């Protein structure tokens, strides 16, 4: 069994983002970038499945500018076998990402495609579901547990009401939630070894996918600031304020 894992390079979750003064977007120059957190869970899960002998190959793919390759390299350092980097500039909408991934799936013929449930930059939460639709494969989103039973995947999903268990027929798409596993750190020897693993480079335009944006970003602005609050002297005052002023208890 072969598993394709899609990873995205995003601004590190610990960085306080800054809105560009001209309102055209977010400042990304000289900002620490990392792999989108739930994509780390996706890679971890794929590598774990390979370690149990149920998968034979884990391929990591990313779509984006030159430096996006770093996320693939990191995936290789924690156990992926080889990488694919589809070069594309600027904002690539989820529908376009899904179409690019579809082309790669046609070529690579994986049995499973894993990715994070959502990217923490655009917060779209679309790509996995869209890819599933384009391929006419089943989808298991928000996965917090994955079991492989022959030709079927049993997946526990985190939904608003609690947990839902579904079965999907392989080939399938899984989008991973943070509770799925604990991503490992790459050891230094493995980081060195990863440098020798192959990364195939492709251009989005060569794949015959229309990369044009359908959503125009008119402006990006900071959310309205909260008015500054007050310090209370003690618990009694706090409770009185909550009851009589804010009226929330």
């Amino acid at each position, binding site marked *: 069994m072969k598993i394709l894992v899609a990873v995205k390079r995003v*601004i590190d*979750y*610990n960085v*306080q*983002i800054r809105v560009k003064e001209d309102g055209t977007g*977010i400042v990304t120059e000289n900002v620490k970038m990392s792999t989108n*957190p*739930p994509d780390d869970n996706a890679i971890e899960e794929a590598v774990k499945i390979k370690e149990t002998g149920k998968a034979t190959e884990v391929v990591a793919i990313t779509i984006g500018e030159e430096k996006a390759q770093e996320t693939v390299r990191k995936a290789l350092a924690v156990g992926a076998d080889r990488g694919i980097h589809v070069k594309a500039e600027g904002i690539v*909408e*989820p*529908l376009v990402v*899904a179409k690019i991934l579809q082309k790669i799936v046609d070529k690579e013929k994986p049995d499973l495609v894993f990715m994070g449930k959502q990217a*923490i*930059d655009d*917060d*779209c*939460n*679309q790509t996995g*579901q*869209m890819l*599933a*639709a384009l391929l*006419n*494969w*089943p*989808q298991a*989103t928000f996965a917090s547990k994955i079991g492989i039973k022959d030709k079927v995947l049993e997946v526990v999903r985190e*939904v*608003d*009401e*609690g947990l*839902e*268990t*579904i079965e*999907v*027929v392989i080939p*399938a798409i899984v989008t991973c939630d*943070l*509770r799925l596993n604990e991503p490992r750190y790459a050891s230094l020897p493995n980081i060195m070894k990863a440098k020798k693993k192959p990364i195939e480079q492709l251009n989005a335009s060569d794949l015959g996918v229309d990369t044009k*944006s*359908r959503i*125009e970003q*008119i402006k*990006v*602005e*900071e*959310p309205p600031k*909260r008015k500054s*609050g*007050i*310090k*209370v002297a*003690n*618990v*009694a005052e*706090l*409770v009185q304020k*909550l009851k009589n002023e804010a009226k*929330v*208890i």
Partner: protein
Amino acid sequence: MSVLLIAEHNNKELRPFTFNAVTAASKIDSDLHVLVAGHNCADVAKAVSEISLVKKVLQVEAEHYENFLPENFATLVVKVSKNYSHIISSANTFGKNLMPRVSALLNISQVSDIIKVISPDTFVRPIYAGNAFATVKSTDEKKCITIRPTSFDAAPTSGGSATIEKIDGTEASNISKFVKREEVKSDRPELGTARIVISGGRGMQSGDNFKLITAIADKLKAAIGASRAAVDAGYITNDHQVGQTGKVVVPDLYIAVGISGAIQHLAGMKESKVIVAINKDGEAPIFSVADYGLEADLFEALPQFLEELNKLNTIQK
């Protein structure tokens, strides 16, 4: 053209966020139709028809719609979508699961999680976990949109009498199967929808100390949250995590206890209506977003807090 909202329900009753979605959808176009697909869901269709903002209900019954599998649902929505300019659902796990599948089948670039309707093609949506707001314009002819329920008021549940039209469904896909659903058996509200949330951070010092928080949560009928630091330290399981990589919450009251206010935590709670911070470090960043800050040792403040609440004894739900 009319707009189509996909109702979220459990075959017996509507999930409450559908009422918020109704309000949002009606801001796009007043000719609002609602699709109720399920199994033995006539009561739901009737409840939807009574919402005054709803002009028409489309009801579809089939066993394979009972558990809302997107493989079955998406083909149905695509079939029904022909006559509509906008397809809408709420941006919770139901809508997030379904709508992108519909979008891709219709070759539409979806606009997720909108918090404001500016015009039928222009919307505001939060990005970077609410650290920035983007105004976006969809250039697709038809639009697929999910809405953030907490950003729109719930529509009045009565006063309407929309017609209910029964329509034919689509075939089952047979590539996915529902097995079971385990609803969280707790007297506490869900973290994502609770009116009050009380969260603990690394300042709690141990998992055992969370009982101080639990006692107050019980008293206030609040959900319990935690910072990533508390989760990473193993004090509490990560389904409680509030923040950019956890849950984004927008309660009426958010109480942060022993939480310094890391960026990633603030991203998950700073839209709350009223924020309380209890921290012994007066310089902690959490105070910059707090409406009421209490600089105190939480191990003294929490028992006092409970005591004061007990004194009130008039807590309304």
